[in-house]
């Protein structure tokens, strides 16, 4: 049986998802990928981003369909649940794979 990875050409720089490639958005998705859900405050504390910066990146990720943002009430306290969507998880995994392939295929310093 042929390994499916051998059938696909290695990823190129052009295939890198630019929505995820931005460092702040990558960091946000990295945190969301290891949790079930979180809220804005926790993400802000963990990523070190400012409120406005985080809000802007979350809006972009939501517009891309990579995250879902839902507001709920817990003990009458409003809470915003942020979680990685199925599409976002898949895109994140693809991004990580593509980045590894791109970096692995970069020529070594001083060669060629």
């Amino acid at each position, binding site marked *: 049986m042929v390994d499916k990875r051998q059938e696909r050409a290695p990823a190129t720089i052009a295939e890198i998802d630019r929505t995820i490639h931005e460092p702040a958005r*990558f960091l946000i998705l990295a*945190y969301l990928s*290891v*949790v079930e*859900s*979180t*809220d804005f*405050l926790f993400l802000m504390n*963990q990523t070190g981003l400012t409120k406005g910066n985080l809000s802007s990146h979350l809006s972009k990720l939501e517009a891309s369909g990579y995250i879902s943002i839902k507001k709920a009430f817990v003990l009458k306290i409003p*809470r915003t649940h942020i979680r990685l969507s199925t599409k976002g998880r898949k895109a994140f995994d693809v991004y990580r794979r593509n980045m590894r392939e791109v970096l692995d295929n970069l020529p070594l310093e001083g060669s060629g």
Partner: protein
Amino acid sequence: MNDATDLAHIRQKVLRESKQDGIIEIWAGMFFMYYAVFFDNIAREIATEPAMVVFFIMICSYPLLYFTLIRNIFTYPRMGYVNINEKFPLAPILAFVVPVTTLPAITFVAVHWMRELVDIYLMLKWMSVLFGLAFGGLYFGLARGFALPAYYILATLAAVSGVVLSMIPQELPGVTVFLVLQSLLLLLYGSLSLFRFIRKYPRPKRASAGVKGNSDGR
């Protein structure tokens, strides 16, 4: 970038951050102090008072209060909310819960119905070894499962003190002294964690909490 791409490292960090308010450790300290009083009562051949039973029920119900109410009112507004879907290290928890619940029951039965057959003081003296190993196993499991490095130190102290206290002749039963030591350690660790938590995550002011009073700033 290397740090960000290490998802295992991020998960460990999130696990650690989510457990740092110290409240459960403070509760555990009080819980084991109760146990110390219980075993001391047994050693002094004082009947277990009804108040002890009531207190036991109250202290056992505290975790429910913590997870449903206290975290939502105190912890999450400061730190933010996170649901990790963590895998509880079941084996060390069971290895701890079983002896810690059955040994007091066995002691109670021994004191009330088998006093002529059993040397209670000797039993309480050696019980510290079992408790030491149970505590050590639990702390070790929690340290690995929840990425809490300080718990490795607690694990070592628990195992060593459990063995040492069973060998040193003393007025109080070894298990009583062991539980007092554990409760003091946990109260100290929990208090320090709580103090650090409050300093690291001051309660956000309402004005900066975001649109229309959202507690999480969005």
